[in-house]
């Protein structure tokens, strides 16, 4: 039992930090650029992706012994796409306001490389419980980076945190200006690049040293 706990813990740490999908595997960059202008969308996207990755990994892992290997990617995509569409339909029926906020992001989860990446590299070779934990871990790892990037972009680009103004009025009067670059996609590129560098090179933070 204890060994099992340690085992899950290891998968979690690996997904969230050691092999973080954005900062280490450099996957899911597209959506990381698109949804990180504001923190609120980044958080909701993180939650949605975590749920989809976890359940698609679970389903694919439980079918892994029966999926013919030459059509496995199509099958994986079919599972992921169905899951995303059903989630979208449920959101539209019961949480209409949230589904409106997310708009196209929910559909875009299908194309997120992290979901397919985890299905392909982990779920196909590991039992369902492990795959589920791995999906959750990678989802959290992705959300973590997304929220960090969104925090910096929203603060510097719009002077807000979660939609609330945080730049004091006297600074604006003295000529403080928001950084327009941060609102645009290139701003996210710079920040993600910096985070990847920090993650992999800074002493004490990088896992590659220990």
């Amino acid at each position: 039992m204890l060994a099992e706990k340690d085992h899950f813990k290891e998968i979690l740490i690996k997904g969230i930090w050691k092999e973080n999908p954005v900062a280490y595997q450099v996957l899911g960059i597209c959506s990381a650029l698109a949804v990180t202008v504001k923190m609120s969308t980044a958080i909701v996207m993180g939650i949605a992706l975590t749920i989809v990755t976890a359940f698609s990994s679970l389903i694919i892992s439980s079918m892994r012994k029966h999926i013919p290997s030459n059509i496995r990617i199509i099958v994986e995509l079919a599972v992921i796409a169905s899951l995303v569409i059903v989630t979208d339909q449920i959101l539209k029926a019961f949480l209409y306001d949230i589904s409106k906020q997310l708009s196209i992001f929910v559909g875009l989860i299908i194309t997120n490389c992290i979901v397919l990446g985890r299905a392909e590299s982990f779920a196909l070779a590991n039992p369902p419980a492990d795959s589920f934990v791995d999906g959750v871990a990678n989802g959290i790892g992705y959300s973590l980076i997304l929220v960090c990037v969104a925090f910096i972009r929203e603060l510097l680009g719009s002077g807000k945190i979660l939609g609330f103004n945080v730049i004091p009025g006297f600074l604006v009067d003295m000529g403080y200006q928001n950084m327009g670059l941060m609102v645009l996609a290139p701003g996210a590129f710079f920040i993600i690049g910096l985070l990847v560098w920090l993650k992999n090179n800074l002493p004490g933070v990088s896992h590659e040293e220990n």
Partner: protein
Amino acid sequence: MSEQTLENQGLKGPDKNSRLNVIKFALLTSLICSLLITSAATGLKNFQLKNMETDRKKNILKACDLLDSQKKASKKQINQLYTANIKEVMVNPEGKIIKTHTDGALKLFLYEKNDGKSGYIIPINTRGLWGKIQGYLAFENDGQTVSGFSVFSHSETPGLGGEIESTWFQKNFKGKKIINSQNKFVSVGIAKGKVKNLPKEDRYNYVDGISGATLTGKYLSEGIKETLTQYNPVSVTFRQKQLRIKEQKE
């Protein structure tokens, strides 16, 4: 040969990678997936349609300022407000209200608030950068002053073009005119940049643009202009009536 294939041939009977199995598996997967999606889509359709209808009404109410966009309202409140204050009518291309539906008839909403203010709401249906933009543009009964704008559905880039549904963008429409100082129809458009940088005579016909969403602004401006041109007889009728009331008073 890989471990998996060995295991399959040895223990599981028929090879999972055989052609027959591949076809069987593909068919089965498609069947299950399509069943799942179809049942979700049809089973939840009524809920979704109800939500959409409420949302449409909410946006009509928001356009004419009957509902505060910051506050949350329950479905019941929205429906009550809607039936109490909004009337759906059809108008012919000459701007007259008609009872029977004819070709070329246009949909129009009339509103009357408790404080006596009234006016009309025009549905806006235009292309955006990625898809359709549907919204409502409300006017005061003078037939020229915009009293509000709201977006009901769109598929613009969130954070950029998607800002058309944000409050700061929509409230800028309030008080804008669709005619210029010479009383000529010019429509109301989205500026490239801030309105304060425009020449003075144009400022009443433009709202602040969204940075990073020039194209969305362009298409929305074009769409609004097109729709307003179509509805121009309605606005003219309202303007003339307003004139008549003024004359009578004098």
